[in-house]
């Protein structure tokens, strides 16, 4: 019990540190929101809403905006630790590497959550969608974000050792998270079409399985990738 409380306390201290830095710099969240809105607006103007089936294209637009904007935010996750060798300060801490990993995932999830709080209503307004299914949508967005943040945090840690880290992260991340994006698009599509979540349960199971497997795998591999 005491060990679990100590673990949680250290994770919270690490998350609080990241949020304090983000609050001061606003590097990740502002970039994610602005980029996500640009994606939504671009697609919004590209399609003629009077002609196309908006409910069919909106899920793809939403997840493209979330995937691309999250990639931008995730690329900052460990690059900020590189400044003045703070990453070495982290690695010198007497904590298990998985503590650092989980704290980073939690912080990244929060940044993604803030961006999604702006992007989802913007999509509903821009594509003139019904807001009746926002509860179900919230579940899908949460599951998709966990998968994205889990794998993205690991790849962000891999990318910091490369000089081309901004390029490397999307090249690594987007192919691996294709099942997440695909499942999220399918479920979101069904939600906008008025189906219940039961009818797309197999996609939800895929999302949950991806989240659990890749979070566990990423936490295990993090120890090896974070060291030079």
């Amino acid at each position, binding site marked *: 019990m005491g060990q679990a409380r*100590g673990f949680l*306390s*250290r994770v919270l*201290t*690490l998350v609080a*540190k990241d949020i*304090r*830095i983000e609050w*001061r*710099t606003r590097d990740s969240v502002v970039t994610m929101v602005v980029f996500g809105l640009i994606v939504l607006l671009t697609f919004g103007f590209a399609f003629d809403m009077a002609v196309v089936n908006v409910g069919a294209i909106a899920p793809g637009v939403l997840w493209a905006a979330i995937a691309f904007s999250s990639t931008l935010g995730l690329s900052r996750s460990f690059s*900020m630790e590189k*400044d*003045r*060798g*703070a990453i*070495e*300060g982290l*690695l*010198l*801490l*007497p*904590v*298990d590497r998985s503590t650092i990993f989980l704290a980073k995932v939690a912080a990244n999830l929060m940044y993604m959550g803030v961006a999604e709080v702006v992007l989802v209503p913007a999509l509903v307004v821009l594509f003139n969608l019904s807001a009746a299914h926002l509860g179900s949508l919230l579940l899908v967005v949460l599951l998709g974000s966990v998968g994205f943040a889990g794998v993205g945090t690991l790849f962000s840690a891999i990318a910091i050792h490369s000089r081309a880290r901004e390029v490397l992260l999307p090249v690594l991340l987007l192919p691996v998270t294709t099942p997440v994006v695909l499942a999220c698009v399918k479920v979101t599509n069904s939600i906008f079409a008025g189906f219940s979540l039961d009818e797309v349960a197999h996609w939800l199971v895929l999302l949950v399985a991806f989240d659990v497997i890749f979070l566990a795998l990423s936490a295990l591999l993090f120890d090896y990738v974070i*060291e*030079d």
Partner: protein
Amino acid sequence: MIEVHDVHKSFGYRSVLRGVSLVVGPGETVALIGANGAGKSTLLHILSTLIQPDYGEVRIAGFDLARKPQEIRRRIGLIAHKTLLYDDLSVGQNLRFYGRMYGVPKPEVINRSLMERLGLWERRDELVRSLSRGFQQRAAIARALVHDPPILLLDEPDTGLDAHTIEILRALVLNDGARRRAVLMATHNVHRAAKWGRRVAVLADGRVTVGDSTDVCGSGDQERLFETGDVHGAG
């Protein structure tokens, strides 16, 4: 407290450490000297668990480096070239963060004492990025000492420090807790090595030879010393 036996480390085809052995006991300060690129920082990075040796045994505070790295991290403080601080946090926030992560009881009291001694108390609310290089290095020293580690690893700790701050650092490192603390300081400044360490370890050609600081540093032929590592011939 620091026991290094036959440690090897290569980067690609370049062999940096080729059988380094060294012991630093409690209450002892050993200066590690060598030319640029001799492997001083590599050895300190191995001792601080940041990189793994290819071969050899390292025990710190009785713990095996390969098996108990967390126990070792709890007991070491590292002052490196970089400050290891967050630019966008204040000095006080950085020290509070590290204090909490090391599980320091009442970190505020220790942090205040450290900041006062290092002349940082009035600047505790300033962002690290806004400080001069000298004050950043002072903050880095406070960070390394926040958990009062029994083992200190110093990698060119005087970088960017004025003479007054170097004396403060020396007092913090060598006087406070000096009876129990093992200190290994890497430097290429032979005179500083002689002043700080009773023993000097010369790292040359991937190996370490240890001698008395007055003998090693008194010869004046630094170039030959760094090249051959012959501490006995130096005096």
